[in-house]
């Protein structure tokens, strides 16, 4: 078992820098999910860990050993590719055992390991088939098997589920999680799907334009997003953002939409009038009339059975999405309240989270 440490990783392709100094420490047996929009550098980071790309700057350490200059094969790792990359002319068993054969393991040992992995994944019956005779889910399992037989220090996954249909994806997701727990192998998993990220990861790395915007547990990220990008990326429907200014000596925000709301968790540091972005998740907006209620003019209602997602505009023109239990109203207007304890406070410029002083 092993740890993985990426320190100050930078990567340029020609003149374009795509990773701007990423730090990440993966603990032994931990599953870390790298999540972010397409093109933000997730795969590049994973491939640097794999040794398929050489970082322009920074070091990669596996189990404390600096492997930055080592070939992928010498890093004692295994990777599952998005398109599985199973060799079409080899049987499933040959595909799984190929790496071991190259390492010069005795045939009996290769056989034993392949059988063991196949049993673990429930693909014993497929060992003699060719990849093209398999369904997407089966190929996925074989690709996993190929990684497992190597008994590596580190598993790397690059969007391994994105070629599966929705139902299978959920099933394989759970299976990968179970397997990873059971084997206890340190893992790095790349996805652009936030649900996948939230359900799979012990911790997430939310990547944004070549930076690690936040590294934390899924719940931490959901509850305390480090900036507006992370806040908007994690959670569905996405968090609402409203404009406001710091007021009352940092104790409250004056929303452009009207009300001034006192922070529930204490005053924020910063000059009076500091432009803020206030975030609130759609499920935290309450539909109730009252002192601080705003009038939401609905323009779209999406009923989802047990709940409804309402899209509307506040009097000042800002958009607000509300998620309510029950069927919700059809159209018209709705009085809404923004509970102080559900607000996320960000500095408007740069989008950084602004926490209470000393808190």
């Amino acid at each position, binding site marked *: 078992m092993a740890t993985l440490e990426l320190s100050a990783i930078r990567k340029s392709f020609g003149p374009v820098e795509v990773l701007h100094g990423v730090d990440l420490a993966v603990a032994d047996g931990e599953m870390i999910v790298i999540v972010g929009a397409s093109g933000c550098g997730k795969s590049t980071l994973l491939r640097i860990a*794999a*040794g*398929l790309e050489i970082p322009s700057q920074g070091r990669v350490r596996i189990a404390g050993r600096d492997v930055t200059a080592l*070939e*992928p*094969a*010498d890093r004692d*790792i*295994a*990777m599952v*590719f*998005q*398109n*599985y*990359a199973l*060799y*079409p*002319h080899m049987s499933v068993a040959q595909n799984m055992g*190929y*790496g071991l054969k*190259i*390492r010069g393991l005795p045939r009996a040992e290769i056989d034993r390991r392949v059988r063991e992995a196949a049993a673990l994944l429930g693909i014993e019956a497929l060992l003699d088939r060719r990849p*093209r005779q398999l369904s997407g889910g089966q190929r996925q399992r074989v690709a996993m098997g190929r990684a497992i037989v190597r008994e590596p220090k580190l598993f790397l996954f690059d969007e391994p589920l994105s070629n599966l249909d929705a139902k299978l994806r959920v099933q394989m997701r759970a299976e990968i999680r179970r397997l990873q727990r059971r084997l206890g192998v340190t893992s790095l998993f790349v996805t652009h799907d936030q649900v996948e990220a939230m359900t799979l990861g012990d911790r997430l790395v939310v990547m944004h334009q070549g930076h690690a915007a936040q590294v934390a547990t899924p719940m931490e990220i959901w509850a305390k997003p480090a900036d507006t990008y992370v806040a908007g990326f994690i959670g569905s429907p996405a968090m609402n953002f409203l404009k406001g200014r710091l007021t009352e000596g940092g104790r409250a925000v004056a929303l452009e939409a009207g009300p001034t709301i006192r922070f529930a968790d204490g005053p924020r540091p910063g000059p009076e009038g500091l432009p803020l972005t206030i975030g609130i998740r759609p499920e935290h907006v309450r539909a109730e009339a009252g002192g601080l209620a705003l009038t939401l003019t609905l323009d779209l209602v999406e009923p989802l059975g047990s709940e409804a997602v309402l899209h509307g505009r506040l009097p000042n023109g800002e958009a607000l999405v509300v998620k309510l239990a029950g069927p919700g109203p059809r159209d018209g207007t709705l009085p809404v309240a923004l509970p102080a304890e559900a607000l996320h406070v960000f500095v408007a410029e740069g989008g950084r989270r602004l926490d209470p002083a000393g808190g």
Partner: protein
Amino acid sequence: MSTTEATQGLALPAEAAPPRRAGGSDRVAHAILLLGVVLFALPLWIVLMGSTHDAATIGRGEVPLLPGGHAVENYTAAWQRGGAGVPGGRMLWNSTVMALSIALGKIAISIISAYAVVFFRFPFRKAAFWSIFITLMLPVEVRIFPTFKVVSDLGMVNTYAGLIIPVIASATATLLFRQFFMTIPDEFVEAAKMDGAGPLRFFWDVVLPLSRTNMAALFVILFVYGWNQYLWPLLVATSADVETVVIGMVKMIGSEANTEWNIVMATCVLALLPPVAVVILMQRWFVKGLTETEK
């Protein structure tokens, strides 16, 4: 199964359904087809029949359309004695060696060149590729005199090496393999790196097996090309030791006034057999390769 049967069952009435065209135009179409078949097949048929008659029959100017009784005699003579001093067996052997070496050599060299150009980053890679590409525009005929000079200075006239080496590089095959290699997903290369396969192992264990179909197809084309070579062997193979069957036949016809046409035709039939055999044999392999591998 049942669905295919059903559709086949449906197809029958559908086929009968379109109104029959006027018998006249149908007959014209058939006549043209028949004419085509005759134009292609008749010369072959005449050669085949001619090779079974004695020299006198053809000498009289008859064109036999039915088999005669001298087949064994003619073929034995063609094989053992030949028409212009070189036994047919010897010429066939020379042609086989030349065509096989050219086909295999071209495949080996071009697949390795394409592998280098596609999978490796090295200085002047682009330049290497373009210089291969440009040689496409330089067929043997264009460079034939300088090539002959080099070959003769090297003492390779009238050797197999002289026959084979000057035509063994193939820009066309290199480009074909290059196109094919570019369709091999990067993920295979990366998976192989993870597996610890170096460049040679990757070539041997992944690239070659995936290229089987392409190699089979190219082998057919290149073997026939090599077999039918004329201009270069005419220049460089002047001794009996390395004379190819194509050259031999031309000599048989050209050298003497009293050409033994029956022997020429028998040699001709013999010369046809290897390329036909290669096409037929490789066809099966080719189809097998197609059904068994995919990317």
